[in-house]
């Protein structure tokens, strides 16, 4: 950093506070961002990261505090106002106009018009081509409808839009949580370009990413700023300590568990499972008391295996055996009755019932097993069930009758887990069980998974987070483009081996052969169905 940058920060916050009803979301937060730097904002769920960013993006107005941006007082009253001033936020789930083209999205609300108000498409197209060249995006995308692009491409285009609007500060809210490895690389490259004319505020849960992109980081806890650090060397321990307020051995404690797996005890056997265009001859075995890790890029078919077992995605071929008995996927109710349980990857869209209480959310699947729509719900038993799991899993809630949305993301996930544990499953399928969950709860969920396997449950674990997957799994199956690419067994599974298999010839440190026409071939994560969401 040059000296004059230090003297004049692009953005300065002093004592910013914000309250929602009874919840003090932010208390006296200070922050400075200088031109050309990436500042990461870290914290557990509910620490106030998103609120802070929304204050900056004009979504919320602070109750107290002083904000200056580019040398002038800053008090945006709406996101549009914030954009006008030069601050653009790209939300976790990209927001855009899905039925319009990329070009229309780029210029939405700022179309170039002629004297009579006619839209000058050609001029806009020209400008867009120039912009895409500058940010390194393919101009062929301009005519595609926004909704048909992958999540990663959508995000890149929203960032390009910010470029186009000449923004000075870009706010990225956990941008990589929905991206594949390749898309993440492209995102980082774009951020790199961005720094030539602006700064970035970056919310993340992933410490590795932090080391890759951020210069500095501040840590929030319970709405207060509890620390700041310069990103240098291995900072993971510091980050965890600051975020949780205590020292943690997140994965180590789990990794050392004894793995005594009975070879004969096969809980789930899949042979030659096929779903046209999605899965091709997938075979795997899952034993009682074992955690089988399923790895692959988005679209490799991990979730699809789960969905086809549940009957949501009818297979065209293959046999399944569940606890030694032949099993034919038909309906979800049948799957539950047979002892399958599935914790979905998208908690918000497929897991929780937002207007129902913690109790009702927790008992939802267990109730389903009782026959007859007019059967009476034993409310006393339901309360006991909820109480038991709230205590066992440490769900933080004031009352089991509160709406589930009053809980933190981590506690919500515990409720969903409890919902399925309550059905007493034989095979538990966990799809990204710790995505977007704070470090502390994550460690608790890791211990829980390990404990369940120890008690004899068969667990199929789908996770994009490789360290987590490797630490928890007894064996790992790697999928690529709907096929089993590799099966790994043993105490030491190398991260690199798994990644290589998942990516195939696609990239990985220079192993790509010159003859493969990589540029014309769509990357593994694109095009393949991830459309069940």
């Amino acid at each position: 950093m040059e000296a004059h940058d230090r003297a004049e920060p692009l953005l300065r916050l002093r004592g910013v506070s914000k309250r929602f009803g009874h919840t003090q979301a932010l208390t006296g937060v200070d922050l400075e961002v200088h031109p050309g730097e990436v500042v990461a904002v870290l914290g557990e769920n509910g620490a106030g990261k998103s609120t802070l960013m929304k204050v900056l993006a004009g979504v919320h107005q602070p109750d107290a505090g002083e904000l200056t941006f580019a040398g002038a007082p800053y008090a945006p009253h709406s996101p549009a106002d914030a954009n006008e001033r030069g601050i653009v936020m790209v939300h976790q789930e990209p927001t855009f106009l899905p039925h319009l083209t990329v070009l229309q999205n780029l210029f939405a609300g700022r179309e170039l018009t002629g004297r009579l108000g006619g839209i000058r498409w050609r001029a806009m197209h020209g400008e867009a081509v120039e912009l895409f060249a500058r940010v390194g995006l393919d101009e062929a995308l301009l005519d595609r409808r926004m909704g048909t692009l992958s999540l990663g491409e959508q995000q890149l285009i929203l960032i390009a839009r910010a470029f186009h609007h000449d923004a000075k500060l870009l706010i990225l809210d956990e941008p990589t949580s929905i991206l594949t490895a390749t898309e993440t690389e492209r995102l980082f490259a774009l951020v790199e370009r961005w720094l030539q004319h602006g700064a970035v505020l970056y919310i993340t849960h992933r410490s590795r990413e932090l080391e890759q992109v951020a210069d500095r980081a501040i840590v929030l806890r319970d709405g207060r700023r509890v620390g700041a650090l310069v990103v240098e060397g291995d900072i993971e321990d510091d980050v965890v300590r600051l975020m949780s307020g205590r020292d943690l051995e997140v994965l180590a404690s789990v990794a050392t568990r004894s793995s005594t797996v009975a070879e004969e005890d096969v809980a789930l056997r899949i042979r030659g499972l096929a779903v046209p265009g999605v899965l091709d001859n997938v075979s795997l075995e899952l034993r009682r008391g074992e955690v089988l890790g399923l790895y692959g890029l988005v679209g490799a078919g991990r979730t699809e295996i789960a969905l086809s077992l549940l009957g949501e995605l009818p297979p065209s071929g293959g046999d399944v055996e569940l606890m030694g008995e032949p099993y034919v996927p038909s309906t979800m109710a049948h799957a539950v009755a047979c002892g399958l349980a599935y914790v979905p990857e998208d908690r918000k869209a497929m897991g929780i019932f937002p207007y129902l209480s913690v109790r009702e959310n927790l008992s939802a699947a267990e109730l389903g097993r009782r026959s007859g729509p007019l059967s009476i719900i034993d409310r006393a038993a339901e309360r006991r069930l909820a109480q038991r799991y709230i205590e066992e899993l440490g769900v933080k809630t004031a009352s089991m009758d509160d709406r589930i949305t009053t809980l933190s993301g981590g506690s919500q996930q515990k409720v969903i887990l409890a919902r399925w544990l309550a059905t007493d499953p034989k095979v538990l399928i966990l799809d990204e069980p710790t995505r977007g969950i704070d470090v502390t709860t994550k460690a608790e969920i890791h211990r829980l998974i390990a404990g369940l396997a120890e008690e004899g449950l068969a667990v199929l674990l789908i996770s994009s987070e490789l360290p987590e997957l490797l630490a928890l799994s007894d064996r790992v199956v790697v999928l690529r483009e709907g096929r089993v690419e590799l099966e790994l067994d043993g105490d030491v599974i190398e991260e690199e081996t798994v990644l290589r298999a998942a990516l195939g010839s696609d990239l990985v440190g220079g192993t790509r052969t010159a003859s493969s026409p990589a540029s014309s071939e769509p990357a593994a994560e694109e095009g393949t169905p991830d459309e069940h969401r």
Partner: protein
Amino acid sequence: MVNARLERIRRLAIWVLLAAQLVAFSFLLPNFLTAGNLGNVIVNSAGLAIVAAAMTFVIILGCIDVSVGSMLGVLAWLTGWLTTTQDMPVVAVLGIVVATGALMGSLNGSIVAKGRMTAIIATLGMLFVWRSVLYGLWGGRDLFAPPLVPWLGGMRIGVVPVVGLIALAVFAVLASVAKRRRFGRDIYAVGNDRQAARLNGIPVDRRIIGAFALLGALVGLAAVMQMARVGVVQAFTGRDFELGVIAAVLIGGTSITGGRGSLSGTLGGVLFVAVLQNGIVLSGVPPLWNGVALGAFVLIAVGSDVLLERRSGQEVPA
């Protein structure tokens, strides 16, 4: 905590409003607070109440049925036709009409569930279809039926109208289903999130069809009650009936986006709407103000719901 309180406020609001309305009308309108008038209010709104009870389930599901008015017309004609030309006992008529209503309702439900059509579009289509069917059946001549049994009409035990007791019983049964039976729980779950409900093994399509069929059956009951009371079917019988029903459910605090609501709230909403209309008639204000008042209260109910949700500082799924 914030939420539990919010929930309580919302649940109480309709009863406070109703009480305020009763007090105000008692003071302002000399003929209001008499057993005769209040009895009339109940007799006139019993059909609305019964249909609104079942409509609550459909709206909690995240659906809506705007065809109930046309269905009421067709089913009232069926009632009249059965009693005049077929000379059937009342119980048989009741059975046939309720069963036919259930069939018509499950047709709506099937279009929504299996045809993957938005409920408002599907039932708007059926609104026109049933209305046209009624025109055809009516054929330019009003159908007069001899009075059915008095207990389905204006009969009272002491000062209490029998139909009021029937409506109350329907509410009691449906409230128990909503709270204590799997069917009710499933309805809430589907209204909260259809995808999540399916992944929990809830037979979503069957629940949707079931709720619409229940609604149709109760429209049948309301149609028989209407014939017992009025004894005539015209081309426009039941027209705009759906608007009062939906208004009562919404004023009772059930969310139009689904997932939230209660039978007790709807009962409050029905009483509020019925008393409001009665008050307007008694006060001699031109009846066109009926619609204005009803519309205003629907806007207030839905608007305050949106505001309260927003103030709770939570993300409300769209």
